[in-house]
């Protein structure tokens, strides 16, 4: 006879969750707490001075502004590109929608570092694009400088983030009853008018969710800006500098806590949006 052990439901649940919880506690919560604690402690006592210093410094405020503006620009471009793609995916692709989703998701299976290197290879001084433009097509006399331009960095970020926006918008667009649009057409609205009067307002939640997602990821993006440059001075880059060059861990911690707060604010916004949708 096997000895039987009876567990209450609560105990069983706790046992099943334990490995994940322990893992998260050791590798996520504790480092996070340790990191933010460093920003609040000075000479053994609690202090907010680093935050007040940081948030009153024009340079650092500029960095926060630049981070947010860059993310907002990337978000706006991503959503503008993603909407038509999502529309085609849901409305026009028919049997090809599966293939389209595959092509959208496939890049996400490649590490972001590899993808960014791809951009470097394509747009290097003697890269493929310049090769084409100068040698093959003869459009230019001398190669263009692509790397370290803001445009290329933004393009690379958009490339990485567009799929997130497409999928968010597509999932909401999928739920829009075509007959609502037909109803508008019957009432004399042109196709364009129907889009702005019916389709777009009904997909605002998808745009919102996609935008917040893209904004959050863009806000924390680091690899792309390190590898492709562009002259941006954003929080993640500054944090990296503080850790590796200046070695001012406390300042780095302060900045990462602020970055975390921005992300949390976005999450809160997203939750509110979702809850409104549920009504």
């Amino acid at each position, binding site marked *: 006879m096997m000895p039987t052990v009876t567990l209450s439901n609560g105990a069983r649940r706790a046992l099943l969750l334990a490995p994940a919880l322990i893992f998260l506690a050791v590798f996520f919560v504790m480092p996070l707490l340790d990191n933010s604690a460093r920003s609040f402690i000075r000479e053994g006592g609690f202090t907010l001075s680093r935050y007040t210093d940081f948030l009153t410094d024009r340079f650092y405020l500029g960095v926060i502004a630049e981070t947010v503006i860059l993310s907002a620009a990337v978000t706006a471009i991503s959503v503008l590109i993603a909407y038509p793609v999502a529309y085609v995916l849901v409305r026009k692709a028919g049997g090809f929608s599966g293939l389209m989703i595959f092509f959208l998701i496939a890049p996400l299976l490649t590490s972001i570092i590899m993808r960014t290197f791809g951009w470097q290879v394509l747009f290097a001084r003697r890269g493929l694009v310049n090769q084409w433009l100068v040698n093959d097509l003869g459009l230019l006399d001398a190669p263009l400088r692509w790397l370290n331009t803001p445009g290329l960095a933004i393009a690379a970020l958009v490339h990485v983030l567009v799929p997130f926006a497409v999928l968010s918008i597509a999932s909401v667009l999928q739920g829009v*009853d075509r*007959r*609502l649009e*037909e*109803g*508008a*057409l*019957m*009432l*004399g*609205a*042109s*196709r364009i*008018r*129907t889009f702005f*009067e*019916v389709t777009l*307002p*009904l997909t605002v939640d998808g745009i919102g969710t996609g935008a917040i997602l893209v904004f959050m990821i863009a806000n924390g993006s680091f690899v792309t800006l390190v590898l492709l440059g562009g002259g941006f001075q954003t929080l993640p880059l500054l944090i990296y500098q503080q850790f590796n060059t200046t070695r001012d861990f406390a300042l780095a911690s302060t900045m990462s806590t602020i970055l975390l707060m921005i992300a949390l604010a976005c999450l809160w916004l997203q939750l509110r949006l979702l809850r409104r949708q549920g009504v």
Partner: protein
Amino acid sequence: MTDLSSALTLSAISKTFGPLKAVDSLDLSVEPGALVSLLGPSGCGKTTTLRMVAGFDSPDSGTITIGGEDMTRLPPNKRGLGMVFQSYSLFPHRTVGENIAFGLRMGGASKQVQDGEVRRMLDMVHLAGREDMYPAQLSGGQQQRVALARALVVNPRVLLLDEPLGALDKSLRESMQFEIREMQQRLGITALLVTHDQEEAMSMSDKIAVMHGGRILQLGAPNDIYDRPETAFVATFLGNSNLFEGRVRDGVLVTKAGALPLPSRPAAETATLSVRPERVVLGDDAATLPQNLRGRITAASFRGAYAAYQITLDGSGTEIIAYRQADTALGQTSLAAGAEVRVGWPVEHGVIVTGSAPKE
């Protein structure tokens, strides 16, 4: 106040989806102010026909005219029609008032005109004072009334009704049938109704077009089609029918069940006789009738206003259905399963149809 410019005519329209001929050279004309139903099982082409009239699909060939004006290639927003959908299709992000005003706003009407018209329409559909509510706050029947108001407010030349009552429950459906019909007649608006519900078609239409396989099998007034179906399909789709197939010999139809007298002389050698269940006479009353059939009641079911019986005829084993009004006066015993009965019908109540009984 019927308007001659609202006559709807479909001439030889066809539509093919891949290998499927959805609509096959269909002709139909709807007189101004009339309500015509397209009735048929799913896949008969009725919805495709309506969508072509609306402008959502365009026919491969043929023309659609309204008031003599060719509409065939016009986009839906240029046709000036109104449409009510099965799913209501009210804009969920707009209030009842905004929904109704939508068509007016697209037409460039002023805010005052819009407000006045919205109030007038809400009065008409008995929903006064609900303009600031959202569709989700209304019941299904109320939403359908708003949908109707939204379609009618623009004075459409033709009103298209796509299974408008399909989503409502039975009791509400009946009262809405009357309400829509009454409104359509009062406004004298030309209407095309698509439905698979024969009761809905019969109670709402001036004419019914029974469709099957992309064609109209028969077009006529509801009672006309019911009493004089031309084909076996129509006889069984619109109402129920007992079909007897056989060869014509000396003015009678020789069937499996026996020789049955015919109401008229058919041209062909073979014929199918259709007898409505409510025309079948059971028991002693059938003694004087010429069919001289006998059978056993194999099932009897009480249906409130009437009772339905299934009878297996002696000899041939042919099964027939009979309805009897629930007028069982005191002292008269109603028939029970297992009873042996005489079966017959007045000869003139049989109808000769073409085609044979649809295979189940």
